[in-house]
């Protein structure tokens, strides 16, 4: 099939950037979206032009590297599917597809469709861990964990850190990402010990990075390739309030 692609091109972080239109004439319906871009790039390289830079690595929907807004929807709008797992059979011959990078102040464009998601790493560095150094830990079965708690923690832990939630949110809020990590660790006894400290630190870092606020539109949940639930945002709100009051009350 034939497609018209309107792709965001930007030389580097300082460049203003703009859309360039390309024709993709030999698109096979069994290609993944990224393979379609690979083929476009082959054509560009053959003409001696710079290929379109886009991020991708595992191409099986788990590493969270790919980050394309396709026709206004991060990852292209197929349920529970990352851009790398999106296949061209979902598009029609002759269609125009607009491809843009994640847009958010904390995710500056590096080049073309590549953005810098360092802000997510910074958030994790500020508290998204259990402070357990290697060695000296008790036997893995020393603390039983209810299956429900463990399953709920796993639901949250599935987050791949792709940033689609931020990209989809009209406020570029990182609440879904932060809440997933806060909930994952907070739901487990191993993570409960430093739960308050964690949530206070992570929210502070999130705010400092310049993400927007949650207005509960639900866009993040809808585009999340791992279907992380809005419930976790509510839980984050609860955990933060608890932590603020407990810290004001003094250590107990």
């Amino acid at each position, binding site marked *: 099939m034939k497609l018209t692609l*309107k792709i*965001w091109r930007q030389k580097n972080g300082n460049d203003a950037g703009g*859309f360039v239109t390309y024709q993709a004439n030999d698109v096979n319906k069994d290609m993944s979206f990224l393979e379609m871009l690979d083929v476009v790039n082959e054509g560009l390289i053959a003409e001696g032009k710079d290929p379109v830079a886009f991020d991708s690595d595992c191409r099986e929907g788990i590493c969270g590297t790919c980050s394309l*807004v396709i*026709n*206004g*929807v991060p990852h292209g*709008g197929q349920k529970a599917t990352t851009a790398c797992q999106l296949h061209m059979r979902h598009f029609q011959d002759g269609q125009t597809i*607009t491809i*843009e990078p994640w*847009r*958010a*102040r*904390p995710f500056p464009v590096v080049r073309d469709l590549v953005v810098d998601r360092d802000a997510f790493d910074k958030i994790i560095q500020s508290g998204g861990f259990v402070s357990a150094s290697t060695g000296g830990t008790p036997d893995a079965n020393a603390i039983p964990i209810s299956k429900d708690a463990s399953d709920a923690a796993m639901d949250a832990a599935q987050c791949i850190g792709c940033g689609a939630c931020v990209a*989809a949110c*009209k*406020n*570029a*809020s990182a609440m879904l990402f932060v809440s997933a990590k806060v909930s994952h660790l907070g739901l487990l006894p191993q993570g409960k010990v430093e739960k308050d400290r964690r949530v*206070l630190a992570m*929210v*502070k870092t*999130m*705010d400092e990075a*310049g*993400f*927007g*606020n*949650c*207005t*509960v*539109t*639900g*866009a993040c*949940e*809808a*585009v999340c390739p791992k279907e992380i639930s*809005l*419930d976790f*945002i*509510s*839980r*984050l*709100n*609860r*955990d*933060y*309030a608890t932590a*603020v*009051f407990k*810290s*004001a009350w003094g250590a107990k």
Partner: protein
Amino acid sequence: MNIFKAIFCSSLGKKYIMGLTGLALFGFVIGHMVGNLQIFMGQEKINAYAAMLKSVPKLLWVARIGLLFCVGLHIWAASQLVRENRAARPSRYEVNDPTVTTFASRTMIWSGLIVFAFIVYHLFDFTIAPDYLGHDAKDRHDVFKMVILGFSNPFSSLFYIIANGLLCIHLSHGVKSLFQSLGFSTGQFRGWFDRFAVVIAWVIFIGNTSIPAAVLLGFGKEVL
């Protein structure tokens, strides 16, 4: 950690302020509606109710100041949040697909601003500088007649109905959000709160607009 800083300077804290003040204002809207619906129980009942409210001026003023304070905080927090939200997305998408988001959730700031303007008008209309200040047989302010007079004007009534529509759009999202922001929307509760918000918004819309609608249809004509 300073608790005031944690609340007033953090994104989540500002949402708590939105949620808590929103909850107070939502409570007022319900009480306001229930009180006003007494108009259908006749002139005596509504005028007595109005007189009762004014009988303890101290309490009345505490409530008024409290509400004003909530409105002020609600607007302050909203303006802060909107400013931050705009800053967080400096460049817009070429193509915008709102996916699953509701109209109400995307337009909170606009519905909120219009409703605020309406409230100011409404206060002037019925509280601060009402057109009619007559008294009933028991020498109480004749609220009944004031309302009937006010809503006899179809333009005024239409304006009230539209403004209430916006208020209820605002509430349909606001009520659901406040439970989310205050951390109650998990598990089965999410569904309940989401449905409750829509139902209560409709109830308030129907309740509030029933008064101008009834007046337009001839209710209370006898006092004019």
